[in-house]
């Protein structure tokens, strides 16, 4: 730093008084804290509704896919993976009474599948009921 630079800097220091800082206006802290408190509150209703509607859409899609898969599974032993699944389910020995829907829906579904669908339906109803009980505050 040459002498001219020191001179200039000192002269600027003569004018700039670090004590003369501009102070924040009154109520500054409370304004900031109010905004922080607002940010800490739950998300707006529109956003939570969007999130809420997203979950049933996924579950409905999965359920529809499962049902469609059940309808589309061919009763054919050559289809390796599907026939394996069918054979497995046919061989399951359950104590529940046999349900024959072939006359109603013209389906050759093993009775275990019908119980599976019934189970899913009951669980879904329970899930909806519990959801309404525990998420009512939101």
């Amino acid at each position, binding site marked *: 730093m040459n002498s001219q630079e020191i001179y200039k800097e000192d002269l600027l220091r003569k004018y700039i008084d670090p004590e003369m800082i*501009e102070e924040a206006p009154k109520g500054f*802290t409370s304004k900031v804290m109010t905004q922080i*408190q607002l940010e800490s509150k739950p998300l707006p209703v529109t956003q939570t509704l969007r999130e809420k509607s997203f979950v049933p859409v996924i579950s409905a899609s999965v359920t529809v896919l499962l049902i469609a898969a059940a309808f589309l599974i061919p009763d054919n032993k050559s289809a390796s993976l599907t026939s394996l699944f069918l054979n497995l389910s046919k061989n399951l020995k359950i104590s529940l009474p046999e349900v024959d829907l072939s006359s109603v829906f013209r389906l050759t579904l093993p009775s275990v599948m019908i119980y599976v669908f019934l189970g899913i339906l009951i669980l879904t109803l329970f899930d909806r009921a519990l959801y309404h009980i525990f998420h009512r505050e939101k």
Partner: protein
Amino acid sequence: MDYKGDIYYIEQVLAGKNNAFGYIVDQHKNNAFNLAFRICGNHEEAEELAQDSFLKAYRALNSFKMKSSFATWFYRIVYNTTISHVRLKKKGVLSLEDFPADATDFIGTNTNEEEAEKEYRNSLVNFALQKITEEERGLISLYYYEDMSTDEIADVTGISKSNIKVRLFRARKKMQEIIEKTEKKKLIYHE
């Protein structure tokens, strides 16, 4: 109540006690406001920018590394927020004719001559600050008001140390010229 240090309150906030952030705000509000004001030159905007910076700091508190200085990290937020704001909203600068010619112009109902002289110099500095670029204003404020070293300023601004020295020198020179010019005008006014 004694301030227990930034880290203590940051840990409290991260543990879920949001109100602890109030102590941090109280501790740094004047410096944040001063830095924002020196760069943007407007009290209302400076208040908004300082508030905005505190909110940004609160939101990003998780990313703050406890090993570094909170003040440096926070000033970086204030500096960047204010510089971006000023760049977006380039304002017209005052002309030399706008500046009061004498310290007596600063004597209000509650100020004596000494205080008026201080006010005059402070306003002259603010006036000169408005004549340099927003980046230079930031450097001058950090160097003179926050008493930061060139290393610390480099941390805050992200500009290299050597570049800061060059820019500070240029900024000082410009401000010096403006102050000298205004002071000369003051002498003519008195004659």
